[in-house]
C-alpha cells in the first residue's frame, strides 16, 4: 500500500513538472502547446549531449555534475521554448485558435523528427545513472535517487509558485491571464511576459527530461509523446491554467495509475485511469482547482 502510494507520487511528480508548463501557457495565451512534451525529450537530449561531452565522470561527482547539467539544460531548453514561441506561435497571435493548435502539433513533430535526424532513431543510454541505496520507509522501498529527484521537483514547484505569487513578473502573468487587452493598456509588456512564461515552462520540462534520463537511464526521440499526453491530462484534471491544480493533477494521475494497475491488472491501468478522468470531468468540468477562474496561472 505505502509502496503504491510512493510509486504513484514519484511518477506523479514528473507529470506535475511537465503539466506546469502546459498549464502556464494555456493560462496566459489559451494555447495547448503540444510541443511541450517534446521539450522534455529535448531536455533529456541536451543533458545527454553535455554529459557525454565531458567524458567519464567519477561516481562521487555524478550528483554535482548532474545538478550543473540540470541548470544549464533548463536555460537552454527554456531558450528553445522561447524560440519556438517566437518562430511558430507569435506570428499567429490573433489567428483562429485551430491554426495555432495545428502549428503546435507541427512544432511537436518538427522537434521529434529533428532530433531523430540529428541524434538518430536509436535509444540512447544516459551517461550518468542514479542508482543508490534503498531504504525501507513504512513498508515502501524507496531509493536515495528517488528522494533526491522528488526534492528537486518539489523545490522547483515551490519556487515557481512563490515566483508567480510574489514578483512583479508573476503579477503581470496573472494579469494577462485575466485580461490580455486590459494588461496591455495598463502598460504591461505582454510579449515580454509571454516569452518569459514559455521560458519557465520549457525550463521545467527540460529539467524533468534530464531527471528522467538520469533516473530511468534511457532516452529516445519519442519519449516526450506519451508523457506529454499524460501531463496534458494532469493539467486538465487540475483545472488547466491553474498552477497548483497542475501539480495536484500530476500527483493524482500518478496515484490513479499505481492503484489502477494494482486493482485491475496492468492491461487495464490506462482504461481505469482515463475512465476515472472522464467521470471526474463530467462531474466537474473545470477540474480540481479550476473554479478559481478569476485568477488563472
Amino acid at each position, binding site marked *: 500500500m505505502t*509502496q*503504491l502510494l510512493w*510509486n504513484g507520487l*514519484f*511518477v506523479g511528480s*514528473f507529470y506535475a513538472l511537465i503539466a506546469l508548463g502546459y498549464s502556464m501557457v494555456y493560462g496566459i495565451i489559451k494555447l495547448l502547446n503540444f510541443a511541450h512534451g517534446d521539450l522534455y525529450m529535448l531536455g533529456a537530449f541536451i543533458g545527454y549531449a553535455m554529459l557525454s561531452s565531458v567524458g567519464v565522470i567519477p561516481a562521487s561527482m555524478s550528483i554535482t555534475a548532474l545538478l550543473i547539467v540540470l541548470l544549464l539544460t533548463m536555460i537552454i531548453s527554456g531558450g528553445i521554448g522561447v524560440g519556438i514561441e517566437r518562430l511558430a506561435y507569435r506570428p499567429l497571435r490573433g489567428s483562429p485558435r485551430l491554426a495555432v493548435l495545428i502549428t503546435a502539433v507541427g512544432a511537436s513533430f518538427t522537434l521529434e523528427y529533428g532530433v*531523430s535526424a540529428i541524434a538518430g*532513431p*536509436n*535509444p540512447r*543510454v544516459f551517461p550518468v*545513472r542514479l*542508482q543508490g541505496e*534503498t531504504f525501507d520507509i513504512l513498508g515502501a*522501498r524507496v*531509493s536515495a535517487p528517488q528522494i533526491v529527484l522528488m526534492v528537486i521537483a518539489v523545490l522547483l514547484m515551490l519556487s515557481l509558485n512563490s515566483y508567480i505569487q510574489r514578483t512583479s513578473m508573476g503579477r503581470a502573468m496573472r494579469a494577462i491571464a485575466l485580461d490580455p487587452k486590459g494588461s496591455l493598456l495598463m502598460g504591461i509588456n505582454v510579449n515580454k511576459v509571454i516569452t518569459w512564461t514559455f521560458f519557465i515552462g520549457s525550463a521545467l520540462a527540460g529539467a524533468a527530461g534530464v531527471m*528522467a534520463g538520469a533516473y*530511468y*537511464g*534511457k532516452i*529516445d526521440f*519519442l*519519449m516526450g*509523446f*506519451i*508523457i506529454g499526453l499524460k501531463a496534458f491530462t494532469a493539467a486538465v484534471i487540475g483545472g488547466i491554467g491553474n498552477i497548483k491544480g497542475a501539480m495536484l493533477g500530476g500527483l493524482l494521475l500518478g496515484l490513479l*495509475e*499505481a492503484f*489502477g*494497475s*494494482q486493482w485491475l*491488472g*496492468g*492491461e487495464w*491501468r*490506462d482504461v481505469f485511469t482515463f475512465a476515472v478522468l472522464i467521470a471526474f470531468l463530467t462531474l466537474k468540468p473545470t477540474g480540481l482547482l479550476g473554479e478559481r477562474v478569476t485568477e488563472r496561472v
Partner: protein
Amino acid sequence: MKLRIPKVLAVGAVAAALMATTGCGGILSGGDENASGDSGPIKIAAVIPLSGSSAPTGTYMKNGMQMAIDEINAKGGVLGRQLQFDPEDEACDPTQAAAAANKAVSNGAVVSVGGYCSGATLPTLPIFAKANIPMIIPAANSQELVNQKLPNVFLINGTGAQQSAAAVKFMAKDGVKSVALVDDNTSYSKDIAAQTKKDLEAAGGIKVALATSVTAGESDYSSVVHDITGANPDMVYWTGYYQEGGLIINQLKAAGFKGKIMVADGSVDASLIEIAGGTSAEGVFATMTQTPDTIKGAETWIADYTKKFGSAPGPYSTQSYDAVRLAAEAITKADSTDGDKIIAALAAIDGFELFSGPLKFTPEHTLSSGGFQILVVKDGKFTLHDDLS
C-alpha cells in the same frame, strides 16, 4: 516480427489496403508495363522500416539484402540479368507500408523480400498477392501472417507459436515452477504471451502466477514491477520490445526481484543490456532464432559484412541475406520472372542451405522447425545457452 499496433487497427489497415488496391487497379495493372519484362534488371523489392523506432533493425536487413544482391550480381546475376534492389521505407506503420508496397509493385518488383514489423507487413500481403508477386518474409512472424493463407507468402523466420513452444520447453527444462507473463499490449507481443499461457496450461506443472501488460513508450514501469514482486514468480517472461524490456529489467532488479528473467526475440538487441544498465541484465535468458553471433561458421560472413558496411551485422541481417539468395534461387529454378512459376519453385525448394539450415517449407509456407534457441546474457553479451535440440 513485431506487431506494434492493436489488432483492430491491423484489421482496419488491411481493409484500407484492400480498398486501396481495388481502387487503384489502374495503377497496379499500369505497373505491369514497367515490370521487369524479359530484359533489363530484375527488381527485388523490400518494404522495411528505414525510419522510426525500428530503423536500426531495418538497416541491418537492408545491408544484408544489399550484400546478397551485390554478390549475386558479381557472379553474373540471375538468368543472365542483373538484380536491382528497391528498398522502400514503411516506418513500421501500416499505412506507410501499404503505400510503399504499392510503389514497389508499380516499380515492377519481381519478388518482395521485406517484412519486419508484422503489423506493417500484414496490409502489404493483399497488395503483393493481387499483383502475384512472391513474398519471402525474412523477419515478420506473427501467426496472423500465416493465417491469411496466401499462396505467394513464404516465411523464413520462426513463428510466434514456435517461439512460445521453445519458451515453454526451456521453462520446464530449467525447473521453473511459476511464471509471470508480461507483454506490451501489441498484437505480436500479446500473441506470444497468450500462446505461452495456453501451452503452459496444457502442459501443466508450471503455474502462471501473473499475466499482465504494460504500455509501450513509457519510462516508469513501477506498477508492473510492483505486481511482479507481489506475485513473486520463479521467472518473468517479457514478450515485448527491447526499449521497455531494458527498463523493466532495471526496475525489477532495483525493486529487489531475485527470480529469473527471460525475453522474447523483440528484446534481443545489445541496447537491452545497455538500457538495463550495469550488470542488471546478466543472466537474462532470451528465446531467439539464430543471429550472426550464434551461427557456427558465420565468421567470414560477419567479417565481409563488417568490411562492407563499417559496422557489425545485427538481428535479421542473415535472414535478409538469405531471403535474397532464396529469391535468386527460385527465379533460377523457375527460369522465368513469372510470379506463378517462382511461387511454384519456392514451394518445391528442398534442402537449399540457409544460415538456419537446409530449407523446406511446410504446406503453410513456414519453416518446419522454428530454429528457436535460448540465449543468455553473459559478460554483457547475448551468448548461446541452450539450442533446445
